[in-house]
């Protein structure tokens, strides 16, 4: 019998399979590359912002109507958010009264978009040549958009920033950690190490596994019903959001913790028992420390998921216009993904680049969280 043709066929099948696998990966990577190039390309302009040099007159009338501080032909070009600070400046520096100074002011989003050459900038025709001339003369400058990182949301695109949402996200995440991690880990330890194996605990197990798979919006409804309607947690607050996300993250943490506990070799428990350790001592002194890297990784991945979540937060009222960073966990706040969503539905075109920039910030945070998880695992992992 000649086996060469069959051998050749088997080799070919081998190579084909390898090729399919690589093609699948290349396909997925090309999507990822497309996404990143698209987002980064759209987001880059948001990190630059136009500033305009205008004469500001600190007259008494400015206290009541900030628009009067600058000549009519510049009013449309300067951001309202800058003009609104003038009465305060005058109050703080009364010696300015009656003087006219050249000031660098934040330019309105229409000027900004016009200079960036974006379609749909909406700058009125009569201002265009004026703005171009000012730019050529150096009275309009592009600067790094530090406001984006130091300010909260605003309805004026040029003034809108990510800070309030970022602080909100951190607060929400801290509450989620404080609630979900201890409860999740303790549940898993009990189920894995102490609970008797009977119908009841089996039913709980099945339910936890199912909970990990239900759509996240249902947790939002649950959060609304329990935390807001029954317990009276203020709507839109970081506490309401954090508790809701904790509910959502619990099953993930429980499942990954149990997997980590299970991967601790039985011989370690046996050795500890053999030396006369109690159940609690075995778990606390030996099993938990060894399972720690696994628990940590699982928790971080669960929390990263929670951080990118919007659906349940929509239900508890966090998808709102909240420009101020929260001072406490009871204050109304918004979170990064919610901020991205709100910007994406704005009609003003300058928000488009800010949406992309927001996505970039969110992605950076998520990637560094995941990177942290990978690093922790590789650092603390034990092999037997």
């Amino acid at each position: 019998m000649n086996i060469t043709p069959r051998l050749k066929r088997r080799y070919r099948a081998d190579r084909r399979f390898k090729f399919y696998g690589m093609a699948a990966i290349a396909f997925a990577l090309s999507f990822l590359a497309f996404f990143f190039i698209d987002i980064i390309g759209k987001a880059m302009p948001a990190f630059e912002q136009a500033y305009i040099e205008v004469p500001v007159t600190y007259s008494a009338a400015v206290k009541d109507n900030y628009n009067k501080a600058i000549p009519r032909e510049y009013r449309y070009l300067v951001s309202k958010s800058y003009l609104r600070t003038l009465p305060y400046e005058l109050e703080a520096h009364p010696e300015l009264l009656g003087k006219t100074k050249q000031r660098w002011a934040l330019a309105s989003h229409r000027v900004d978009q016009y200079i960036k050459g974006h379609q749909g900038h909406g700058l009125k025709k009569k201002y265009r040549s004026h703005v171009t001339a000012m730019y050529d003369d150096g009275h309009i400058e592009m600067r790094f958009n530090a406001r984006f990182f130091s300010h909260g949301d605003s309805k004026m695109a040029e003034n809108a920033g990510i800070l309030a949402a970022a602080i909100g996200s951190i607060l929400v995440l801290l509450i989620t950690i404080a609630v979900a991690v201890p409860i999740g880990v303790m549940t898993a330890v009990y189920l894995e190490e102490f609970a008797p194996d009977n119908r009841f605990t089996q039913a709980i197990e099945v339910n936890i596994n199912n909970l990990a798979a239900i759509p996240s919006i249902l947790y939002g409804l649950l959060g609304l019903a329990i935390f807001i309607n029954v317990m009276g947690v203020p709507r839109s607050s970081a506490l309401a959001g954090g508790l809701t996300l904790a509910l959502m993250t619990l099953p993930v943490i429980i499942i990954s913790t149990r997997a980590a506990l299970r991967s601790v070799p039985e011989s370690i428990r046996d050795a500890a028992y053999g030396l006369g350790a109690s159940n609690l001592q075995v778990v606390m002194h030996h099993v938990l420390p060894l399972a720690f890297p696994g628990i940590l990784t699982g928790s971080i991945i669960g929390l990263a998921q929670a951080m990118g979540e919007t659906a349940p937060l929509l239900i508890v009222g966090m998808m709102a216009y909240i420009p101020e960073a929260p001072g406490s966990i009871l204050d109304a706040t918004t979170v990064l993904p919610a901020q991205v969503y709100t910007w994406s539905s704005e009609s003003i075109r300058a928000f488009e680049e800010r949406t992309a920039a927001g996505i970039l910030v969110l992605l950076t945070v998520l990637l560094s969280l995941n990177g942290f998880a990978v690093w922790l695992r590789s650092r603390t992992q034990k092999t037997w």
Partner: protein
Amino acid sequence: MKKTSLFACAAVAATCMGMTAAQAADAIQIVGSSTVYPFSSYTAEALGTTTKFKTPVVESTGSGGGMKLFCAGAGMDTPDFTNASRRMKLKEFQKCQRNGVKEVTEMVVGYDGIAIAQSKTSPSIALSRHDLMLAVAAEVPSKDGSHLIDNPYSFWDQINSKLPHRAIRIYGPPASSGTRDAFEDMILKHLTKHIDTYTKLYKADKKKNKAYKKYHKIRQDGVYIPSGENDNLIVQKLARDTQALGIFGYSYLEENSDSIAPAIIDGVIPTPETISGHTYPLSRSLYFYIKKVHIGKVKGMMAYANLFMSDKMVGKDGECTEIGLISLPEADLAHYRANLKSLKNLTAADFAKK
């Protein structure tokens, strides 16, 4: 492990603190229509930056969702204002009354037009409301008008021979949206309540055929494509799909005038003048409602309402008009300002008038 138990204690403590200190309502809470949201939040920002009051929290829940929250009760955890892109319904008013929200003041801040638009590259199209009704209704009268048939039209020239041979494809808001409500009101109900083919069915059996009194069902065979609450998505689709029409708020048309152009409806193009003058048929008033029992308990409520109704915001050259609001005529504005000053109560009789 000590760390973990410490965490647990912290969590429990935080939760308990939350319970006792809750309800310290200091910022104004506003809910309601996504159409009024841009103007409402703009005013909120102005209030926050120019006065000592905290910036109100403005949530975009849709008109119906806002009414539900607003009318849920008079407690301090309920919203202080609700925005709406249509008037409060009698049913909602009664719900408010039942739940203890007895005194409500109604305000109109301005108008919004609903634009029917298409890609700028397509040849302009002029439609009547009747054409549009026949294009989107689920059931339409047969050619002889004797009975209703499932909507058979897939090209505009089948509806009206004067129209071009162009596929009917309309991207519009989903059923939960206030814009959709308004569209159904102004295009479908407005016409079908006067068309015998529908109303005779209702007269024949008032209970079973209640839907035919003011028929407003939109077809679901893929010609009308519900496209989510995000109007930017519809704008993007129109730029690519040159055959299609889209339905969205006027401010999106204004902001995207480089890529999309309005259709002419009943001979009129939407502009700020035609919308506020009611010659453009698809214009609607934008409302907000004040929960009077909260005034005095929540700081800054009157300051917000006064600012929102001021010339600086919603007057002819007000800041809100720069972001797409169409301002009320002087006389109407004065009327509502007087109502705001006296905090005139909304009564059941107000609903009978219209």
